[in-house]
């Protein structure tokens, strides 16, 4: 790999350090002191040359490394709507942008009241209507809290959460971090759709970068979802890519005829742990084999059709089969549980809603959409560690079961171990 000369010349210890830093940056693109993984900053600074090279040549990403922070400028994720901040509403996002706009001209410190006044003034300037009601204040507070979490602002005195108490909060602004926040081509885009599209565009070695970015960032990449050119490239190169992902990012590929799943053996490089321990994650995992049986996969991409009713039914059965296993909230509001399960599977790229015209959509109108399960859902074989409560049909054995396992299953259920 001539493109990564500096990396190739590193000793094995340094190379593994670079890999570790690269993984931290992929996990947290804005890494700062005092934040999780912030203790890696000295090492990132030391290895910045190799890291620059790795990111720019392999992914076409820009990397800014300073002693106090490191920023990896990722490209946009395109049509994926699950990469935002779950806590922010459109109004919250609007306040985030307005606050950033206001902070650009404010200097180092500002009183919270002044900041809020300026943000509202900026809102008027931007044409965003301001109504001073609790919902609006919540949105603003959520935006400010998000900025605190990013480290762009900090509360020197008081706190941003107490916006309507009389104690005045003093906000300190990290202007360096502030300047590193916007990454996409906002200025040159005429509209939001164009921004989303152009942010996801890659540079000169476009096909290679685009596909590799998807492998590195996305949980499931199906060949059928890629444009013809990218699909051909990936089909030709998946062997090389496997080795490359492992060497530079410590990631392991799982290649099947429908596509590629990339995983991290150390369970680090993801913001959504799945399989997970929460009620939603466990229900989602146990539901997969049943859901996959609901319909035969379609020819084009191997996705299995499911209906919202299937989801509801399977989740309902699981709730009844293992009454002690789930959180009270889930058992009391099964509809909410189904929605959460669907959302989780969508985040993981395992479930996709399609509108009537066949385009992938992120619409919220669950009943109207056609739902498709990715073939990658077959990769797990969930095994409950207890038998379902009697009085119900036991769960049918999950689909393709290697014969050797039945011995162990029997032993397990007999309690002989």
């Amino acid at each position, binding site marked *: 790999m001539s493109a990564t000369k500096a990396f190739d010349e590193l000793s094995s210890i340094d190379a593994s350090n670079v890999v570790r830093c690269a993984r931290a940056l*992929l996990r*947290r*693109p804005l890494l700062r002191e005092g934040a999780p993984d912030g203790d890696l900053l000295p090492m990132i600074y030391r290895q910045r040359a190799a890291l620059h090279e790795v990111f720019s040549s392999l992914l076409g990403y820009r990397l800014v490394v300073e002693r106090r922070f490191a920023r990896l400028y*990722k490209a946009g*994720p395109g049509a994926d*709507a699950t990469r*935002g901040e779950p806590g*922010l509403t459109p109004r919250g*996002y*609007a306040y*985030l*942008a307005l606050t950033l706009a206001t*902070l*650009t*001209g404010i*200097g180092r410190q500002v009183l919270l009241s002044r900041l809020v006044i300026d943000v509202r003034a900026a809102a008027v*300037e931007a044409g965003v*209507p301001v109504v001073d009601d609790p919902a609006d204040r919540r949105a603003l507070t959520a935006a400010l809290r998000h900025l605190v979490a*990013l480290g762009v602002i900090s509360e020197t005195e008081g706190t941003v959460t107490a916006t309507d108490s009389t104690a005045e909060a003093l906000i300190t602004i990290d*202007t360096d971090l502030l300047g*590193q926040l916007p*990454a996409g081509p*906002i*200025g040159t885009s005429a509209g*939001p759709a164009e921004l*989303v599209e152009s942010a996801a565009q890659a540079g000169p070695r476009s096909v290679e970068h685009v596909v590799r970015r998807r492998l590195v*960032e996305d949980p499931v990449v199906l060949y059928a979802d890629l444009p013809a050119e990218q699909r051909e490239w990936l089909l030709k190169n*998946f062997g090389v890519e496997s080795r490359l992902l492992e060497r530079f990012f410590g990631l392991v*590929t799982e290649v*099947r*005829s*429908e596509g590629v*799943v990339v*995983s*991290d053996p150390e369970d680090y*490089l*993801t913001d959504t742990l*799945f*399989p*997970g*321990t929460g*009620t939603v994650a466990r229900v989602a995992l146990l539901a997969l084999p049943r859901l996959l049986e609901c319909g035969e996969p379609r020819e084009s991409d191997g996705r299995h059709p499911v209906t919202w009713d299937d989801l509801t039914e399977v989740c309902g059965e699981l709730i009844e089969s*293992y009454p*002690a*296993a*789930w*959180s009270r909230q889930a058992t009391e509001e099964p509809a909410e549980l189904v929605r959460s399960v669907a959302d989780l599977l969508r985040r*993981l*790229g395992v479930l996709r809603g399609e509108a009537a015209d066949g385009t992938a959509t992120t*619409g919220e109108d669950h009943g109207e959409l056609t739902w498709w399960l990715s*073939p990658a859902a077959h*990769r797990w074989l*969930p095994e*409950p*560690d207890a038998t379902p409560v009697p009085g119900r049909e036991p769960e049918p054995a999950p*689909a393709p079961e290697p014969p*050797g396992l039945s011995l*162990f299953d029997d*032993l*397990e259920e007999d309690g002989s171990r």
Partner: protein
Amino acid sequence: MTAPDHEADVLRAGVAGTEAESASSAQALDDVRADQQRLRLFAYLSAREHRTYLAIMRLFTSTLLADLSIGEVTAALAAAEREGRIDPGESELDTVVERLKQLRLWGNLVLGRRETIAASIAEFQHGSVRYQVSKLAVRVQRDVDALLRVPEGAREVSRELLPAIERGLGEIGSALSAAVAAESAEPGSKRARRTRERLAEHVTTVFLQHAELAATVRDFYAYLGEVVTRHHLAPDEISGFRNLLVEYIQMVVEDVLRHTETIAGSLAGLAGVRGELIRLLGPADQLGTEVERARGRTAADWQELTDWFVDAPGRPSQVAALREATARAIGSLLASVKRATSGSGLLPGRRGELLKLARWFDEAEPPEAHRIYAAAFGLYSARHLLPAPDYDSDNHDVPWRDGPVQDVTVSVRSRGDRGARGRTSRVLDDPMTEESLLAEAREEDARRGAAVAELASAGDRLADTRLSGEALSVLCELLTLAMAQRDSSDDPGSALDPVHRLRVTIRPEAGTHTRISSSAGTLTLTDAVLDVHGDGAIPAEATR
């Protein structure tokens, strides 16, 4: 207008405040009307034909005591129309008459004396009226012209006035004492009048200088405020700011601070004799009460001047405000210059982008907003599925449904999260192999146990018993160990199976042959005797 304000007004105007409460509110209403009337003086500026109106008003304000007939105005406008300063047709007589009437309606012009000498009957009929400009309209027009002339950039602060003010205040002090001395020596004398006039001269000068200084400072900081809150800085602006910053602002503030102390001292001195001073400057008897006095003739003027330079409790002076504003401005300017030149930091030009972004966000549906956020900020984490596959799991020809799967044990026993996530360990938790190995070991154990039991039960009757192959091999194993224990072939030796507590002892005994027959063959020991001791319970334990 609130009642106290109104009362103050009444007192200030020197009118006896004897009106009833109802009268005062009526008065307030009148004031509002009067204000409205005055504000109509500005109406011509926003009228459609404002160029004509401006030309007319300039004509009237260009000379002192302008008193113009319609004919004269028309002639002047004809010249302006030829030069293109006003729209074509605006200098026609009828139009001019119309414009002048309108201006009179707004209050900018007042009727002058009626012209009786007309060049023609037509002129007499049309334009027998002469117009003059009203006092307030002159003020408005002067401000308008000044405003139109002002360039966009910063206004130079008249710093040089500071030493002049400082000196002037000192001279007021000495002039005042001279005037007081002359007055007490010879009231009404020529000398007393002269000293009073000198005093008035100094006072007026100081107030004019201060008014100019305050205006320039205010203008300069207004400009500065505009600059520091603006964020589209061009490179040449930035270099300009550096001069503005390090040289000019610093200079202004230093000058102001240097002179403030002396000025404040002089003002404090004059504060004690302010009553005397104002008395000497005298009431403007000859002008009546409805008069706008020159600056410095009332206590309020002096208070204002003092407040500009000297801090009062709870009310910082303008000098303090200046100092504070400067610190703020320098901070902001430094920040903008640093941002713009260092390359890091949010470019000031991004403010516009971010405002645009805010609008997009606000108009978007939630999924769209998430997409925009991810695209605009790129702060999302990489996301992958767990657990990682085996290294050999690339099966490109196999679909997922047929490929190897990841076993995941999901805890459904309780709400707790015991062992639900992650892969099952391949080595430690491979139940099949573990089970088969265990079974193998158990079987092995059982076979050995049976063999030992057989040997033990044979015991003394070893020679008469036909052993199984297993038992013989156990015997041979122990025999080997026993023989290895001996120092020489003449010593006895023994070996113990530690699990089954079976002891085998071999003793040399010349001439004795021990024959042990088994299904696997016959073992013959020459010149040796073999003892096997075992505990009957052991075999049972061994087979468990």
